[in-house]
Protein backbone atom coordinates (compact mmCIF):
# COMPACT_ATOMS: atom_id res chain seq x y z
CA UNK A 1 0.00 0.00 0.00
CA UNK A 2 1.17 3.52 -0.74
CA UNK A 3 1.22 6.15 1.99
CA UNK A 4 -1.88 8.32 1.70
CA UNK A 5 -0.12 11.69 1.93
CA UNK A 6 1.74 10.96 -1.30
CA UNK A 7 -1.46 10.53 -3.34
CA UNK A 8 -4.28 13.06 -3.31
CA UNK A 9 -7.39 13.22 -5.47
CA UNK A 10 -9.40 16.39 -5.96
CA UNK A 11 -12.94 15.46 -6.92
CA UNK A 12 -16.66 16.15 -6.84
CA UNK A 13 -19.13 13.55 -5.57
CA UNK A 14 -21.43 13.48 -8.61
CA UNK A 15 -18.71 13.38 -11.25
CA UNK A 16 -18.28 10.20 -13.30
CA UNK A 17 -14.77 11.23 -14.34
CA UNK A 18 -13.74 11.45 -10.69
CA UNK A 19 -15.25 8.05 -9.84
CA UNK A 20 -13.38 6.58 -12.80
CA UNK A 21 -10.10 7.57 -11.15
CA UNK A 22 -11.23 6.31 -7.74
CA UNK A 23 -12.17 2.93 -9.21
CA UNK A 24 -8.68 2.65 -10.71
CA UNK A 25 -6.99 3.64 -7.43
CA UNK A 26 -9.06 1.12 -5.50
CA UNK A 27 -8.46 -1.67 -8.03
CA UNK A 28 -4.75 -1.09 -7.58
CA UNK A 29 -5.00 -0.93 -3.79
CA UNK A 30 -3.54 2.59 -3.72
CA UNK A 31 -4.35 4.61 -0.63
CA UNK A 32 -5.16 8.22 -1.27
CA UNK A 33 -6.51 11.33 0.35
CA UNK A 34 -9.76 12.54 -1.23
CA UNK A 35 -10.53 16.24 -1.32
CA UNK A 36 -14.12 17.21 -2.20
CA UNK A 37 -14.31 20.38 -4.29
CA UNK A 38 -17.16 22.85 -4.41
CA UNK A 39 -17.03 23.65 -8.11
CA UNK A 40 -18.88 26.92 -7.62
CA UNK A 41 -16.10 27.98 -5.27
CA UNK A 42 -12.93 26.20 -6.36
CA UNK A 43 -10.10 25.88 -3.88
CA UNK A 44 -6.82 27.66 -4.43
CA UNK A 45 -5.17 24.22 -4.42
CA UNK A 46 -7.29 23.02 -7.33
CA UNK A 47 -6.57 26.18 -9.30
CA UNK A 48 -2.87 25.85 -8.53
CA UNK A 49 -2.74 22.21 -9.62
CA UNK A 50 -4.96 22.60 -12.69
CA UNK A 51 -4.67 26.22 -13.82
CA UNK A 52 -5.52 25.49 -17.45
CA UNK A 53 -8.76 23.51 -17.21
CA UNK A 54 -9.62 24.28 -13.57
CA UNK A 55 -11.48 20.94 -13.46
CA UNK A 56 -11.72 17.78 -11.45
CA UNK A 57 -10.42 15.13 -11.23
CA UNK A 58 -6.86 16.12 -10.41
CA UNK A 59 -4.53 13.44 -9.08
CA UNK A 60 -1.56 14.80 -7.17
CA UNK A 61 1.27 12.32 -6.72
CA UNK A 62 4.31 13.50 -4.75
CA UNK A 63 3.17 17.07 -5.41
CA UNK A 64 2.94 16.50 -9.19
CA UNK A 65 -0.52 17.08 -10.66
CA UNK A 66 -1.99 14.85 -13.37
CA UNK A 67 -5.26 15.87 -15.02
CA UNK A 68 -7.80 14.36 -17.47
CA UNK A 69 -9.30 11.14 -16.14
CA UNK A 70 -8.13 8.81 -18.93
CA UNK A 71 -4.64 10.32 -18.77
CA UNK A 72 -4.71 9.73 -15.01
CA UNK A 73 -5.71 6.08 -15.55
CA UNK A 74 -2.72 5.47 -17.81
CA UNK A 75 -0.45 7.25 -15.32
CA UNK A 76 -1.73 5.10 -12.48
CA UNK A 77 -1.17 1.95 -14.52
CA UNK A 78 2.36 2.95 -15.52
CA UNK A 79 3.37 4.03 -12.02
CA UNK A 80 1.89 1.20 -9.94
CA UNK A 81 2.58 -2.05 -11.73
CA UNK A 82 0.46 -4.48 -9.64
CA UNK A 83 -3.02 -5.44 -10.89
CA UNK A 84 -2.58 -3.97 -14.38
CA UNK A 85 -5.60 -2.13 -15.82
CA UNK A 86 -4.44 -1.93 -19.44
CA UNK A 87 -3.59 -5.04 -21.46
CA UNK A 88 0.06 -5.94 -22.03
CA UNK A 89 -0.25 -6.59 -25.77
CA UNK A 90 0.11 -3.35 -27.83
CA UNK A 91 -2.75 -4.28 -30.20
CA UNK A 92 -5.07 -4.92 -27.26
CA UNK A 93 -3.93 -1.65 -25.73
CA UNK A 94 -4.74 0.16 -28.98
CA UNK A 95 -8.21 -1.43 -28.99
CA UNK A 96 -8.77 -0.41 -25.36
CA UNK A 97 -7.72 3.16 -26.13
CA UNK A 98 -9.98 3.25 -29.19
CA UNK A 99 -13.03 2.28 -27.10
CA UNK A 100 -12.11 4.81 -24.42
CA UNK A 101 -11.90 7.59 -27.03
CA UNK A 102 -15.14 6.36 -28.60
CA UNK A 103 -17.16 6.62 -25.38
CA UNK A 104 -15.48 9.74 -24.12
CA UNK A 105 -15.88 11.72 -27.32
CA UNK A 106 -18.70 10.22 -29.37
CA UNK A 107 -21.04 8.65 -26.80
CA UNK A 108 -20.62 11.50 -24.36
CA UNK A 109 -21.47 14.04 -27.08
CA UNK A 110 -24.70 12.28 -28.07
CA UNK A 111 -25.63 11.70 -24.42
CA UNK A 112 -25.04 15.38 -23.72
CA UNK A 113 -27.31 16.36 -26.61
CA UNK A 114 -30.00 13.86 -25.58
CA UNK A 115 -29.79 15.31 -22.07
CA UNK A 116 -29.87 19.02 -22.85
CA UNK A 117 -31.86 19.27 -26.07
CA UNK A 118 -35.52 18.84 -26.87
CA UNK A 119 -37.64 17.84 -29.83
CA UNK A 120 -36.03 16.67 -33.07
CA UNK A 121 -32.48 17.29 -31.91
CA UNK A 122 -33.08 15.16 -28.82
CA UNK A 123 -34.57 12.36 -30.94
CA UNK A 124 -31.65 12.47 -33.37
CA UNK A 125 -29.15 12.30 -30.49
CA UNK A 126 -30.94 9.27 -28.99
CA UNK A 127 -30.84 7.57 -32.40
CA UNK A 128 -27.10 8.25 -32.71
CA UNK A 129 -26.52 7.03 -29.17
CA UNK A 130 -28.31 3.79 -29.98
CA UNK A 131 -26.04 3.21 -32.98
CA UNK A 132 -23.10 3.65 -30.61
CA UNK A 133 -24.63 1.34 -28.02
CA UNK A 134 -25.05 -1.30 -30.73
CA UNK A 135 -21.30 -1.14 -31.42
CA UNK A 136 -20.57 -1.53 -27.71
CA UNK A 137 -23.07 -4.38 -27.50
CA UNK A 138 -21.38 -6.23 -30.36
CA UNK A 139 -17.96 -5.73 -28.77
CA UNK A 140 -19.24 -7.49 -25.65
CA UNK A 141 -20.34 -10.64 -27.53
CA UNK A 142 -18.91 -13.65 -25.70
CA UNK A 143 -17.25 -11.52 -23.01
CA UNK A 144 -18.27 -10.78 -19.44
CA UNK A 145 -16.43 -7.46 -19.42
CA UNK A 146 -14.85 -5.38 -22.19
CA UNK A 147 -11.48 -6.36 -20.76
CA UNK A 148 -12.35 -10.07 -20.49
CA UNK A 149 -13.12 -11.96 -17.28
CA UNK A 150 -12.15 -9.04 -15.05
CA UNK A 151 -12.76 -5.33 -15.32
CA UNK A 152 -9.99 -3.27 -16.84
CA UNK A 153 -9.28 0.03 -18.55
CA UNK A 154 -12.03 -0.22 -21.14
CA UNK A 155 -14.65 -1.06 -18.51
CA UNK A 156 -13.49 1.86 -16.39
CA UNK A 157 -13.66 4.12 -19.45
CA UNK A 158 -17.17 2.97 -20.44
CA UNK A 159 -18.20 2.66 -16.78
CA UNK A 160 -19.90 6.05 -16.57
CA UNK A 161 -22.57 4.72 -18.89
CA UNK A 162 -23.46 1.92 -16.48
CA UNK A 163 -24.68 4.41 -13.88
CA UNK A 164 -24.83 7.95 -15.23
CA UNK A 165 -26.64 7.12 -18.47
CA UNK A 166 -29.60 5.92 -16.41
CA UNK A 167 -29.31 9.01 -14.23
CA UNK A 168 -29.31 11.24 -17.31
CA UNK A 169 -32.34 9.42 -18.72
CA UNK A 170 -34.31 9.90 -15.54
CA UNK A 171 -33.24 13.52 -15.05
CA UNK A 172 -33.90 14.55 -18.65
CA UNK A 173 -36.83 12.29 -19.54
CA UNK A 174 -35.56 10.07 -22.32
CA UNK A 175 -34.86 6.38 -22.82
CA UNK A 176 -32.09 4.80 -24.83
CA UNK A 177 -33.77 1.40 -24.40
CA UNK A 178 -30.62 -0.62 -23.97
CA UNK A 179 -32.38 -3.19 -21.79
CA UNK A 180 -34.58 -4.11 -24.72
CA UNK A 181 -32.28 -3.57 -27.68
CA UNK A 182 -28.78 -4.30 -26.41
CA UNK A 183 -28.78 -7.40 -24.17
CA UNK A 184 -24.97 -7.73 -23.91
CA UNK A 185 -24.58 -4.11 -22.92
CA UNK A 186 -27.46 -4.29 -20.49
CA UNK A 187 -25.96 -7.41 -18.88
CA UNK A 188 -22.54 -5.71 -18.72
CA UNK A 189 -24.05 -2.69 -16.93
CA UNK A 190 -25.41 -4.97 -14.18
CA UNK A 191 -22.22 -7.01 -13.86
CA UNK A 192 -20.06 -3.88 -13.79
CA UNK A 193 -22.14 -2.22 -11.09
CA UNK A 194 -22.07 -5.43 -9.04
CA UNK A 195 -18.27 -5.50 -8.87
CA UNK A 196 -17.23 -4.70 -5.27
CA UNK A 197 -14.84 -1.86 -6.20
CA UNK A 198 -17.56 -0.21 -8.27
CA UNK A 199 -20.58 -0.97 -6.07
CA UNK A 200 -18.92 0.56 -3.02
CA UNK A 201 -17.86 3.65 -4.93
CA UNK A 202 -20.93 5.18 -6.56
CA UNK A 203 -22.78 8.33 -5.59
CA UNK A 204 -26.28 7.92 -4.08
CA UNK A 205 -28.67 7.53 -7.03
CA UNK A 206 -31.54 9.80 -6.00
CA UNK A 207 -29.22 12.57 -4.96
CA UNK A 208 -27.39 12.25 -8.29
CA UNK A 209 -30.63 12.36 -10.30
CA UNK A 210 -31.62 15.53 -8.41
CA UNK A 211 -28.21 17.02 -9.04
CA UNK A 212 -28.45 16.42 -12.79
CA UNK A 213 -32.04 17.59 -12.93
CA UNK A 214 -30.91 20.90 -11.45
CA UNK A 215 -27.91 20.90 -13.78
CA UNK A 216 -30.21 20.55 -16.80
CA UNK A 217 -32.39 23.38 -15.60
CA UNK A 218 -29.37 25.62 -15.43
CA UNK A 219 -28.96 24.73 -19.09
CA UNK A 220 -25.25 25.18 -18.90
CA UNK A 221 -22.31 22.82 -19.39
CA UNK A 222 -19.89 25.05 -17.59
CA UNK A 223 -21.30 24.88 -14.06
CA UNK A 224 -19.89 21.44 -13.42
CA UNK A 225 -16.45 21.21 -14.93
CA UNK A 226 -15.43 17.62 -15.09
CA UNK A 227 -13.39 15.52 -17.49
Amino acid at each position, binding site marked *: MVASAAVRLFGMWASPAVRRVEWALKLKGIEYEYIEEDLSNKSSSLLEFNP*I*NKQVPVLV*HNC*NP*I*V*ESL*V*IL*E*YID*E*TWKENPILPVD*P*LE*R*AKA*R*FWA*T*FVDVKCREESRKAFFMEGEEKEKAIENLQVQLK*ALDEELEGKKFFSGDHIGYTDLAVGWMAFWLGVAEEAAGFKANYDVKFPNFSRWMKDFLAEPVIKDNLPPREKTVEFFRAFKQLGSCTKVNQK
Partner: protein
Amino acid sequence: MGETLKLFGWKVSPYSHRAEVALRLKGLKYEFIHEDLANKSDMLIRYNPILKKIPVLLHGDTPIVESQVIVEYIDEVFDGHPILPKDPYERAEARFWARFIDEKVRPQVWMSCWTDGETQKSFIAQAKESLAILQGRLEGKKFFGGDSIGLIDIMACSLALWFGVMQEVVGLNLLNEDDYPELCRWGEEYRNAEAVKECLPERELIVGFFAPRKDRIFAKKAPVYD
Protein backbone atom coordinates in the same frame (compact mmCIF):
# COMPACT_ATOMS: atom_id res chain seq x y z
CA MET B 1 7.37 -8.13 -36.09
CA GLY B 2 7.93 -8.65 -39.81
CA GLU B 3 4.36 -7.94 -40.81
CA THR B 4 3.48 -5.37 -43.45
CA LEU B 5 2.26 -1.89 -42.65
CA LYS B 6 -0.41 -0.14 -44.66
CA LEU B 7 -1.85 3.27 -43.97
CA PHE B 8 -5.28 4.21 -45.31
CA GLY B 9 -5.11 7.97 -45.43
CA TRP B 10 -5.77 11.20 -47.22
CA LYS B 11 -3.02 13.73 -47.75
CA VAL B 12 -5.26 16.72 -47.03
CA SER B 13 -6.05 15.41 -43.54
CA PRO B 14 -3.82 16.42 -40.61
CA TYR B 15 -5.02 13.27 -38.81
CA SER B 16 -3.65 11.17 -41.64
CA HIS B 17 -0.41 13.14 -41.45
CA ARG B 18 -0.07 12.38 -37.72
CA ALA B 19 -0.03 8.65 -38.43
CA GLU B 20 2.32 9.05 -41.40
CA VAL B 21 4.86 11.20 -39.59
CA ALA B 22 5.02 8.67 -36.75
CA LEU B 23 5.83 5.92 -39.26
CA ARG B 24 8.49 8.12 -40.89
CA LEU B 25 10.06 9.07 -37.55
CA LYS B 26 10.60 5.39 -36.86
CA GLY B 27 12.02 4.82 -40.35
CA LEU B 28 9.32 2.28 -41.19
CA LYS B 29 8.37 1.04 -44.63
CA TYR B 30 4.66 1.23 -45.33
CA GLU B 31 2.22 1.35 -48.20
CA PHE B 32 0.07 4.50 -48.33
CA ILE B 33 -3.39 3.80 -49.64
CA HIS B 34 -5.11 6.98 -50.71
CA GLU B 35 -8.78 7.17 -49.73
CA ASP B 36 -11.33 9.29 -51.56
CA LEU B 37 -13.52 10.38 -48.66
CA ALA B 38 -16.45 11.09 -50.99
CA ASN B 39 -16.29 7.47 -52.08
CA LYS B 40 -14.83 5.33 -49.29
CA SER B 41 -13.35 1.99 -50.24
CA ASP B 42 -14.81 -1.32 -49.08
CA MET B 43 -11.52 -2.02 -47.35
CA LEU B 44 -11.69 1.16 -45.26
CA ILE B 45 -15.22 0.34 -44.14
CA ARG B 46 -14.19 -3.24 -43.40
CA TYR B 47 -11.26 -2.14 -41.25
CA ASN B 48 -13.02 0.76 -39.52
CA PRO B 49 -16.70 -0.22 -39.53
CA ILE B 50 -17.66 1.88 -36.52
CA LEU B 51 -16.23 5.25 -37.49
CA LYS B 52 -15.53 4.70 -41.22
CA LYS B 53 -12.72 7.26 -41.05
CA ILE B 54 -9.11 7.64 -41.96
CA PRO B 55 -6.42 7.18 -40.85
CA VAL B 56 -6.45 3.41 -40.41
CA LEU B 57 -3.15 1.66 -39.84
CA LEU B 58 -3.11 -1.95 -40.91
CA HIS B 59 -0.38 -4.01 -39.24
CA GLY B 60 -0.50 -7.38 -40.91
CA ASP B 61 -4.25 -8.01 -40.88
CA THR B 62 -5.06 -5.97 -37.80
CA PRO B 63 -6.43 -2.44 -38.03
CA ILE B 64 -5.64 0.31 -35.56
CA VAL B 65 -7.80 3.45 -35.71
CA GLU B 66 -7.83 6.99 -34.26
CA SER B 67 -4.75 9.07 -34.98
CA GLN B 68 -3.42 9.36 -31.42
CA VAL B 69 -4.04 5.68 -30.76
CA ILE B 70 -2.10 4.87 -33.95
CA VAL B 71 0.81 7.14 -32.94
CA GLU B 72 1.02 5.57 -29.47
CA TYR B 73 0.82 2.08 -30.97
CA ILE B 74 3.68 2.81 -33.39
CA ASP B 75 5.73 4.16 -30.48
CA GLU B 76 5.10 1.10 -28.33
CA VAL B 77 5.78 -1.50 -31.00
CA PHE B 78 8.71 -0.05 -32.92
CA ASP B 79 12.15 0.98 -31.72
CA GLY B 80 13.91 4.09 -32.91
CA HIS B 81 12.93 7.71 -32.45
CA PRO B 82 10.99 7.93 -29.15
CA ILE B 83 7.67 9.74 -29.62
CA LEU B 84 6.46 9.66 -26.01
CA PRO B 85 8.80 10.14 -23.04
CA LYS B 86 9.68 7.14 -20.85
CA ASP B 87 8.82 8.69 -17.50
CA PRO B 88 5.12 8.18 -16.52
CA TYR B 89 4.67 11.76 -15.32
CA GLU B 90 6.15 13.18 -18.52
CA ARG B 91 3.97 10.81 -20.56
CA ALA B 92 0.89 12.05 -18.67
CA GLU B 93 1.95 15.62 -19.35
CA ALA B 94 2.34 14.93 -23.09
CA ARG B 95 -1.06 13.23 -23.22
CA PHE B 96 -2.64 16.16 -21.38
CA TRP B 97 -1.37 18.57 -24.05
CA ALA B 98 -2.53 16.20 -26.80
CA ARG B 99 -6.06 16.42 -25.37
CA PHE B 100 -5.77 20.18 -24.92
CA ILE B 101 -4.93 20.49 -28.60
CA ASP B 102 -7.74 18.20 -29.77
CA GLU B 103 -10.43 19.41 -27.38
CA LYS B 104 -9.69 23.11 -27.11
CA VAL B 105 -7.22 24.50 -29.65
CA ARG B 106 -8.34 22.71 -32.78
CA PRO B 107 -12.14 23.06 -32.42
CA GLN B 108 -11.80 26.73 -31.38
CA VAL B 109 -9.48 27.51 -34.25
CA TRP B 110 -11.73 25.63 -36.70
CA MET B 111 -14.89 27.40 -35.55
CA SER B 112 -13.06 30.75 -35.66
CA CYS B 113 -12.74 30.15 -39.41
CA TRP B 114 -16.23 28.88 -40.10
CA THR B 115 -18.50 31.20 -38.13
CA ASP B 116 -19.26 34.88 -38.28
CA GLY B 117 -20.63 37.72 -36.17
CA GLU B 118 -20.72 37.41 -32.41
CA THR B 119 -20.26 33.65 -32.55
CA GLN B 120 -17.01 34.08 -34.42
CA LYS B 121 -15.82 36.76 -32.01
CA SER B 122 -16.40 34.38 -29.13
CA PHE B 123 -14.51 31.52 -30.80
CA ILE B 124 -11.65 33.84 -31.74
CA ALA B 125 -11.34 34.98 -28.13
CA GLN B 126 -11.26 31.36 -26.94
CA ALA B 127 -8.79 30.36 -29.65
CA LYS B 128 -6.48 33.26 -28.79
CA GLU B 129 -6.39 32.20 -25.18
CA SER B 130 -5.75 28.55 -26.00
CA LEU B 131 -3.05 29.39 -28.56
CA ALA B 132 -1.29 31.57 -26.00
CA ILE B 133 -1.41 28.77 -23.44
CA LEU B 134 -0.06 26.28 -25.96
CA GLN B 135 2.68 28.69 -27.02
CA GLY B 136 3.68 28.97 -23.36
CA ARG B 137 4.35 25.24 -23.28
CA LEU B 138 7.10 25.66 -25.91
CA GLU B 139 9.27 27.51 -23.39
CA GLY B 140 11.72 28.56 -26.09
CA LYS B 141 12.51 24.97 -27.11
CA LYS B 142 12.87 23.82 -30.69
CA PHE B 143 9.94 21.42 -30.40
CA PHE B 144 7.30 20.68 -27.76
CA GLY B 145 9.19 17.40 -27.35
CA GLY B 146 12.47 19.29 -26.66
CA ASP B 147 15.24 18.78 -29.20
CA SER B 148 13.20 16.35 -31.23
CA ILE B 149 9.61 15.84 -32.34
CA GLY B 150 7.35 14.22 -29.79
CA LEU B 151 3.68 13.45 -29.31
CA ILE B 152 2.63 17.06 -28.71
CA ASP B 153 4.34 18.25 -31.91
CA ILE B 154 2.59 15.55 -33.92
CA MET B 155 -0.79 16.35 -32.40
CA ALA B 156 -0.24 20.09 -33.04
CA CYS B 157 0.69 19.57 -36.69
CA SER B 158 -2.36 21.36 -38.10
CA LEU B 159 -1.00 24.57 -36.58
CA ALA B 160 2.18 24.15 -38.62
CA LEU B 161 0.44 24.13 -42.00
CA TRP B 162 -3.25 23.37 -42.27
CA PHE B 163 -4.57 26.12 -40.10
CA GLY B 164 -2.44 28.76 -41.84
CA VAL B 165 -3.87 27.71 -45.21
CA MET B 166 -7.44 27.59 -43.92
CA GLN B 167 -7.26 31.03 -42.35
CA GLU B 168 -5.98 32.47 -45.64
CA VAL B 169 -8.86 30.89 -47.54
CA VAL B 170 -11.44 32.43 -45.18
CA GLY B 171 -9.61 35.72 -44.71
CA LEU B 172 -8.78 35.39 -41.03
CA ASN B 173 -5.53 36.54 -39.44
CA LEU B 174 -5.47 34.66 -36.17
CA LEU B 175 -2.22 32.70 -36.14
CA ASN B 176 0.42 35.23 -37.14
CA GLU B 177 4.03 35.99 -36.28
CA ASP B 178 3.26 39.18 -34.41
CA ASP B 179 0.85 37.54 -31.98
CA TYR B 180 2.39 34.07 -31.83
CA PRO B 181 6.09 34.38 -32.72
CA GLU B 182 7.10 31.20 -30.89
CA LEU B 183 4.31 29.08 -32.37
CA CYS B 184 5.15 30.32 -35.87
CA ARG B 185 8.84 29.61 -35.28
CA TRP B 186 7.88 26.12 -34.11
CA GLY B 187 5.73 25.68 -37.21
CA GLU B 188 8.71 26.36 -39.45
CA GLU B 189 10.95 23.96 -37.49
CA TYR B 190 8.25 21.32 -37.74
CA ARG B 191 7.72 21.75 -41.49
CA ASN B 192 11.47 21.54 -42.10
CA ALA B 193 12.08 18.42 -40.02
CA GLU B 194 13.25 15.49 -42.16
CA ALA B 195 10.49 13.01 -41.36
CA VAL B 196 7.82 15.70 -41.72
CA LYS B 197 9.07 17.05 -45.05
CA GLU B 198 8.72 13.59 -46.55
CA CYS B 199 4.99 13.43 -45.88
CA LEU B 200 3.73 17.00 -45.67
CA PRO B 201 1.14 17.87 -48.32
CA GLU B 202 1.68 20.86 -50.62
CA ARG B 203 -0.16 24.03 -49.60
CA GLU B 204 -1.93 24.00 -52.96
CA LEU B 205 -3.50 20.63 -52.19
CA ILE B 206 -5.05 21.99 -49.02
CA VAL B 207 -6.15 25.22 -50.74
CA GLY B 208 -7.62 23.06 -53.50
CA PHE B 209 -9.75 21.29 -50.90
CA PHE B 210 -11.00 24.31 -48.94
CA ALA B 211 -11.39 27.06 -51.52
CA PRO B 212 -14.06 25.49 -53.74
CA ARG B 213 -16.01 24.19 -50.73
CA LYS B 214 -15.92 27.37 -48.63
CA ASP B 215 -19.64 28.08 -48.62
CA ARG B 216 -20.67 24.49 -47.97
CA ILE B 217 -18.16 24.06 -45.13
CA PHE B 218 -19.37 27.37 -43.67
CA ALA B 219 -22.95 26.10 -43.77
CA LYS B 220 -22.11 22.73 -42.23
CA LYS B 221 -19.31 23.87 -39.89
CA ALA B 222 -17.64 20.58 -40.82
CA PRO B 223 -15.59 19.29 -43.77
CA VAL B 224 -17.45 18.39 -46.95
CA TYR B 225 -15.74 15.85 -49.17
CA ASP B 226 -17.62 15.75 -52.44
